[in-house]
Structure formats: structure tokens, C-alpha cells
């Protein structure tokens, strides 16, 4: 028997999470070849090399408000959107960071509510405040959820940047 062997290679990278294969899926790589033997054109398939995709946990939070929000002493609402940038469904625990470093402008956090009716506007009595720990519903990969951070500003608070959500 005469055997000639070799290895053909190709380099690839799994797509970024926004277009990623779902967690738990299996990617298969199968090659084919054509050749001639004894004057006859032939073809052959390889076996399949399976690659199992694990879950990548990632999340992003960004403000829905176009710019700085003007507030007055009393209650206020800031809007954010949470995006599951991983490749599997996940719940996320939210926390509002109201203490802005460098000044005394610390709003009081009253809670975080889910935009349950999808209008990106806080509707008291409709958008229920999440019980602690403030946990989102399960978000599919690339799924988003608008949330509202409910705040109270004290009279006499110095002007500063609005609080951040993490």
C-alpha cells in the first residue's frame, strides 16, 4: 500500500456574539474532495469534526435618554435598556448606582421597574417595581429589555451628573 498524507488548514474565528452560534449548539466541519484515479473522476467526503459552543455571558446597559436629564427635588425616572450580548438566555440582576463620585449629588434609589408594556415610558402602576434583587426576566441572546430607575432627589442637592445604572 502506498499512502500519502497531509493536512490542509483554514483559520477561522467564531463570529462575534451579536451573530454568534447559540450556546449548546454544535458546529460541524466537513470537507469534500474531488480527484481522478485510473482515469475516473471521483469524490469523497470526510467525517465531521464537531465543535460544541459554550455559553458566553455578556451584558450591556445604556441610557435611553438622549442626553442629560433635568430634575427637580422629588421623584424622577431614568430610562435604560439592558441588552443580552451573550449567546444564551439569561436573567440579569440590576443595581442602580446613585452615588456619583466627586460631589455630594446622591439621589435616593426607590427601585427599578421593567417596561412591561414596551412603550419606553414609565407608567406607574403598570410597570411593576422589581423585588430585590432586581432581576430581569430571561432575555434571549441579543434580546433587550427597557428598565426604569426610580429616584428621589432631595431639595438642596448640588447639581451634578445623573446617576449611573449597572
Amino acid at each position: 500500500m502506498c499512502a500519502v498524507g497531509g493536512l490542509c488548514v483554514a483559520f477561522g474565528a467564531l463570529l462575534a456574539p451579536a451573530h454568534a452560534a447559540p450556546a449548546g449548539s454544535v458546529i460541524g466541519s466537513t470537507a469534500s474532495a474531488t480527484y481522478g484515479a485510473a482515469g475516473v473522476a471521483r469524490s469523497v467526503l470526510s467525517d465531521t469534526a464537531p465543535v460544541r459552543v459554550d455559553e458566553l455571558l455578556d451584558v450591556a446597559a445604556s441610557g435611553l435618554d438622549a442626553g442629560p436629564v433635568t430634575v427637580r427635588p422629588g421623584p424622577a425616572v431614568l430610562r435604560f435598556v439592558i441588552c443580552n450580548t451573550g449567546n444564551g438566555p439569561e436573567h440579569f440582576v440590576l443595581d442602580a448606582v446613585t452615588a456619583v463620585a466627586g460631589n455630594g449629588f446622591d439621589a435616593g434609589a426607590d427601585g427599578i421597574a421593567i417596561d412591561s408594556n414596551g412603550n419606553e415610558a414609565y407608567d406607574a402602576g403598570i410597570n411593576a417595581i422589581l423585588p430585590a434583587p432586581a432581576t430581569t426576566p430571561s432575555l434571549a441572546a441579543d434580546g433587550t429589555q427597557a428598565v426604569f430607575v426610580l429616584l428621589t432627589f432631595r431639595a438642596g442637592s448640588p447639581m451634578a451628573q445623573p446617576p449611573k445604572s449597572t
Partner: protein
Amino acid sequence: MRNAILGFRLRCAGMAAPVLGQTSNPLSLTACAKLERVAIDEQGNRQIELDDPQPVVPGDRLVLGTRYANDGDTLIENFAVSNPVPAAVTVAVDINPALPISVDGGKA
């Protein structure tokens, strides 16, 4: 779907005359996939290691390969192997420019 096409001509020294009427496939292909990891050794040198890709996560770098062998005693000519890149994988931007890439299923 993108294909990585590699063309080869396989020859065996001291090859016997072709076997007419042979029905078994003298050419075998074996697919393999490896996960490329970059490690830095104690001297700060960059080392590339290939591990079994079980599992992988988005953003990982893979090396997809095809091992081929002429298991028969017949001369194999005009050998071309096509290794379609799975839809969930993109061809790395720093791929060897000498590697032919087809975006039409290997027609061009």
C-alpha cells in the same frame, strides 16, 4: 458559506499500475478542528497552542483542517479538497494570503 479550497497532486514513488475497476475509495479524508490559544511563556514570548475545541465560545479562534491520505495503490491526480467554513465561523482576517478562498462554493 465560504470555502477554503486547496489543490494538490498526490504521487507515490514506485507506484504500481492503476487498478482498473476498483470500487473502493482509495482516498480518505479526515476532518479536524482545533482551538487556537495564545500563551505567553516566562520569557514573554508568544506561544500558540492548539487544543481540542470542547467547548468554544464566540470570539475563539479555530483551525479547521482536513487530513488526506491515499490508502490505495492507484495514482491520484487532480486532487482538490474543499473545506466549507461553517456559517457560524468567519475566516480570520490574518489568514495566509496564499490559501485560496472561494465564496461561491468552490466554482471560482
